[in-house]
Structure formats: structure tokens, C-alpha cells
């Protein structure tokens, strides 16, 4: 067995079916969608009238106009990404650090924070819908506070913030668990050594723990960013289908309500490209120290590999 697996040709043979299957169900559809996005409309819809139209859909999609909601949708998704990166992830990290230090009831808190991840997004949206349409207005009324005009989910200025909260809340536990798991793998002797050297609390977190879970932070950032650009389910349910501008919602409406299949394909490709660009950017920011020009591995990295 060992001999077989050390032969690169046999590895290739074993991996080939998976590669072919993956290519057929993932890579091929992406390129097919790309091709569709370059047509005036797909042949299944208009038959022989289908023709190559180049970047026409992309230009239409990105040209600002009063009723072109796509640029605004991209802006909203970037805002959501920023909220994820600067609010959701730091919050997850804070909880993970607190839990990793072994407080009383560690397991209970860990499981409690993870519960929303297990619940279906639709249930989470309905739950928050009840909060926004029932509990919160009652609370505001009892405190004599002004409820936003048209309600929390109807007000043009506030609905974006309120619709983001459920998904931000839901995935805090997910990122927390990933970071918590990574923190728990830091060898105890390193932490002990740091304690002997006088590090504790914030110093321990910023100098030892966070640098050592950098690879996991990168994973969390990638998931968070890609999830932001693809965000669909929670706003869809919470805001009654498409009352909010987000790229994935816009794509769905163009595809299934407006029946502009090629135009929707262009939006789909835009979302894929956006995810790829940001993943590449993230890889560049988090590239290995040794890959940076003129830099040598630093202390933290050396320790991690010990």
C-alpha cells in the first residue's frame, strides 16, 4: 500500500475521478455561466436569436443609474463584509480568548455560543423578524423611544443595519469555535514560558496567542469575506424576498423574476470574481513572512513550528 501511494502516477489515477467529477459540477458550470454572461440571452430562452454580445451586460450592470441597483448592492455587500471583519470577527476572537483561558462553565458557554450556527438561517430570520416586528417596537414604546418610520425593516435608512444583525449574530459562534479550537492547540509549555516571562491577559493574547493562530484567523477572514459577498438567505427571508440590495439577491431577481438569464449570469460571474479577488488579496496580506521581500521568519513563527 505504502509503495502504491508513493508512486505519483498511482496517486494521480486515484485522484482523477474526483478531479473529473469536481470539474464537471463546479468548474464547468462556472465557465458555462461565463459564456452565458457574454451572450445577449441564453439559447434555451430565445433560441436562434441568441448572439455574442461581449461585455455589454457587465457595462450595463456597473454603470450607475437611477434604477440600476447593482452598484448599490455591491456597496452594501462591502459594508457587510466590513462589519463582519471589524465587528463579528473581533467579537468572536474575544469570546474565543476568554473561553480558551478556561473559565468556569467553559463547555456550557462554548456550546451556547455555537447554538445559532446549528439553527437554520430561515428559522433565525423568522426569529429576528418576530423581534423586529414585535418585541423591539414594544420595548421602544415602553421606553417612549421613536420607532423608525415604516418600522425597523421598512425604513430605507435602517433596514440594512437591522437585516445584517441576524447573520452577524448567527456566525459569531462559528468563528468563535474555529478560533477556540486553534487556541486550544497552542502547546501549554509556550504559554507557561510566556507566563514565566511575565506575560498575562492582553499581553499574552496579543503577543503569543493571536500570532500563533494566524493561519486560523486567515481561514475565518476568508469564510467571513466570501460569506459576505454571497449573503442571501437571511435578508431574503427577513425582508420578504428582494426588498434589499445585495448582489446575490439581485442575481436571483434578474434570473427568476425578470428572466434575464444572461444578465443574471454576468452578476453571478461578478460575485465569483469578487470572491476570488478578495481571497487572493487576503492571501497576499497573510503571506508567509519568508515570502515577504527582505524578511526572515520571526520568533512567533519559529515557535509554532517547534
Amino acid at each position, binding site marked *: 500500500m505504502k509503495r502504491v501511494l508513493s508512486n505519483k502516477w498511482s496517486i494521480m489515477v486515484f485522484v482523477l475521478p474526483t478531479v473529473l467529477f469536481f470539474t464537471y459540477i463546479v468548474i464547468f458550470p462556472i465557465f458555462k455561466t461565463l459564456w452565458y454572461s457574454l451572450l445577449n440571452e*441564453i439559447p*434555451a430562452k430565445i433560441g436562434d436569436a441568441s448572439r455574442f454580445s461581449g461585455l455589454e451586460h457587465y457595462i450595463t450592470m456597473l454603470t450607475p443609474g437611477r434604477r440600476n441597483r447593482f452598484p448599490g448592492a455591491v456597496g452594501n455587500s462591502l459594508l457587510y463584509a466590513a462589519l463582519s471583519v471589524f465587528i463579528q470577527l473581533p467579537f468572536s476572537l474575544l469570546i474565543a480568548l476568554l473561553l480558551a483561558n478556561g473559565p468556569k462553565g467553559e463547555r456550557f458557554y462554548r456550546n451556547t455560543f455555537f447554538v445559532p450556527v446549528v439553527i437554520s438561517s430561515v428559522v433565525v430570520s423568522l426569529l429576528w423578524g418576530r423581534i*423586529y416586528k414585535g418585541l423591539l417596537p414594544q420595548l421602544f414604546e415602553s421606553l417612549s423611544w421613536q420607532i423608525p418610520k*415604516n418600522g425597523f425593516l*421598512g*425604513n430605507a435608512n435602517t433596514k440594512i443595519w437591522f437585516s445584517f444583525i441576524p447573520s452577524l449574530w448567527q456566525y459569531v459562534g462559528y468563528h468563535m469555535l474555529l478560533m477556540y479550537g486553534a487556541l486550544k492547540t497552542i502547546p501549554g509549555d509556550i504559554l507557561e514560558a510566556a507566563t514565566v516571562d511575565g506575560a498575562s491577559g492582553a499581553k499574552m493574547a496579543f503577543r503569543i496567542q493571536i500570532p500563533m493562530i494566524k493561519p486560523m484567523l486567515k481561514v475565518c477572514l476568508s469564510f467571513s469575506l466570501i460569506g459576505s459577498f454571497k449573503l442571501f438567505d437571511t435578508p431574503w427571508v427577513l425582508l420578504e424576498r428582494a426588498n434589499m440590495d445585495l448582489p446575490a439577491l439581485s442575481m436571483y431577481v434578474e434570473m*427568476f423574476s425578470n*428572466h434575464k*438569464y444572461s444578465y443574471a449570469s454576468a452578476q453571478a460571474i461578478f460575485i465569483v470574481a469578487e470572491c476570488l479577488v478578495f481571497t487572493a488579496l487576503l492571501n497576499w496580506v497573510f503571506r508567509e513572512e519568508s515570502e515577504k521581500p527582505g524578511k526572515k521568519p520571526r520568533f512567533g513563527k519559529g515557535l509554532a513550528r517547534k
Partner: protein
Amino acid sequence: MKKILALALALAMALSLTAAFADGGPVVLKVASIWSAETEANRAPMLKTLAEFEEAHPEIKLEVEWYEANAWKDQGETLALSDSLPDVFYWNAGGVLWNLVSSGDILPLDEYLTDEIKGQLIGGALANMTFDGKVYQLPYTNACSCLYCNTELFDKYGVKIPETWDELLEAVKAFREAGVVPMALGGGDKWPTNMYTDIIALRFVGDEACRACYYKTEGATFLTDDWKEAMTAFQTLIDLGAFPDDALSLTRDESEVPYFNGEIPMYVHGQWFSGSLSAEMQNKVKAVKFPAVGKGYDNQWMGGPAEGFSISAHTEHPAEAFVACQFLAQHQSDNGFECGAGLPAWKTEVQCGNPVMNQIAEQVAAGDSLLLWGNTALSGDDATLIGDTVYDVLAGTSTPEQWCEDMETIFGK
């Protein structure tokens, strides 16, 4: 013993195989229906219709899949792309139907549709289902929207049921002063807002000009004083606080709850809403014509046969599918009317036990015309636009003038 058992099993399998390929078995047709929820007014009549079909046509077996209305619309569009629509299925008329007709997914019914069958339909029933002289759907209901007034609340606050636009504004003001939300509206779903704007537009603009715009006739335009006046009238209702403060956060079904609870006095809704009223509410509610504006269009109605059953162009059993399609449409029309879920689209002897539905049926029969709602008559992104733009007006992010300009863009394509 084992051998005998194995032999018996093999024999049973072989027999079942031959049965599957044998001639004379029932033709199996796939059917897609909406009304998946038990609370839908049309669900019970549809179940009755299916039971009647089973009894009348043992040679055809229907395999029904139930969907929620919006979910089916999306699903149907997707299935059409891969030529895998069910044999017989529920679908909207007008522009929504045209989407599938234009892509060749729906079977024209003219080959099977005899004059005798046509004669059983009410007059003009096929207008929204006919394209280029070919019929693509059979309606199971005739639709219209009207103003549902809770007489108990009108009596309690001493307000007169409005017959004119000024009386409507007075009623709105009176209820607001009494701390009562005057009109129910689930603006989150958009189309309920279109119900209001469509009927207001009909009163100010008239059937002919509205029809020209909704069917994109040459020379039609939204940039007229009448259209601006209509949308300004809608804006006046918003400004007077006619709708719930959180109307845009509410779905259609959420908006109906306070009406069912007797907390809101008025609601512009489709005729099917009367089927959802409890027996107690049916005695309190009066369905009336939307208030008159005095421009000569006061007896015109929004609606018409707007929903029905169609047949996939790719069905393997077109003749049987037509039998099923006609049966479902005709019997659902009767059964739906009988229990007050809808107005009949086929001539019928059936009596309706719902007093509110009877009021509507009587008034619509005496109406001058029926015009399909804008979001149903228009198709694709035009239909989306008319929903988005009224949402924006309701949200205060667009003005009546901007609404007219935005809608005018549908002619530039």
C-alpha cells in the same frame, strides 16, 4: 423452502415488470398546484376537485405536487428552462404567462378547445390567456379587487362607508384621529401596494389609458397629468397615515391579521380574501366598489381571469392533459365559488354560501370593464419595476413624479 421463496419473489418481480409495460394502465400525469398551506381558501376546493377527477377519469392518474405560490413561480421558470415542466400546472395569465409562451414551453390548446367548451366559459374569460390568436390557458377563477369595509368599526366610530374619494379621505382622517389604523397593507410583499395604486390609477386614468400602458400599446405613456394625479392621490393617503406605520415591514399575511381581528376598518384586496374571512367576519364585512373620483371611470374594476391551468408543450399525453386541464379549471371554478374562495370563470349553477363573495359577484357583473393588474399584465423586469417603484413611493424614497418617469422607462426597450 428458501428456493420456493426466491422463486416466488422472482416471479412477483417479473410480473410487476410486465405490468409496468402492459397497455391499458392509467396514463400518469404530473400536476403542479399552489395552495400548499392548509389555510389557503382554494386548498379545500382543489382537494375536492382532485377527488372528483379521480372518480370521473379512472383512466388518468394525477400525481400532484403542491407549492407555495411564489415558490412555484420561481420553480416553474427554472423547470421551463430544462423543458421539464409538469404536464398540467397552475400558472398566472397575462405577462407572466407570456414569459413561458414566448419561449415555447406551453402547449396551445386550440386543437382541443371546441366551441362547445368555449361556450361554457364566461364572456372574455380567455382574453388574458390568448396570444397571437392562440389560447394557452384555461382559467379557474375570475378575479377582481374591491374595498373590504368592517361595518362594525364604521358604526363604532360613526364613519360613513366611503363612496367618493373625498369621503375616503374623511374616513381616513376620522379613523386616524380615533387612533385606529384606517387601511391594512402588507407593503413588504409589494404586490399588495400595487392593488392600491392600480385601483386608484384606474379611477384617475381610466381603463383605456391604463390598459394601453400595462399592455405597452404604441403611443402609451405614464407622463400624463392623470397618472401624476393618481400617484399624488396615493401619496395623499400615505401622508394622511392611511396605512400602518410599519406597512413596509409587513407581509401580506401579517397585514391581514389585524383585519381579521377587527382592528382595521378598510382593506383593498382581491376577491379571494373574502374566502379567508371567518363566518363571523363575513357578517361584519361589506365589500364595496373603490370610491368614485368623478372622472367617468367609477364603475371600472381591476381584475379579470388572471390565473388558470396550462399544459407543458413537452407533455407526452397532450389529449389526456387537456382533459385534466379542462376538468381542473372548470371544477375548481365551481368548487372555489361554492365555498367563497373565488368568482367563477365558467358558467355555473352553483350557489355561493359566502355573503361577501356574493356582494362582489353582483357588483362585478354590473361593472363596465375589468382590467388585469399592472404587475400581472406586464412581464419580466417591467413587472418587477412596477412593484419596486410603488415600494419606493411608500418608503418615501421616490415621488409621484419620479414614479411616472421610472415607469416610462418600460417603453424605451
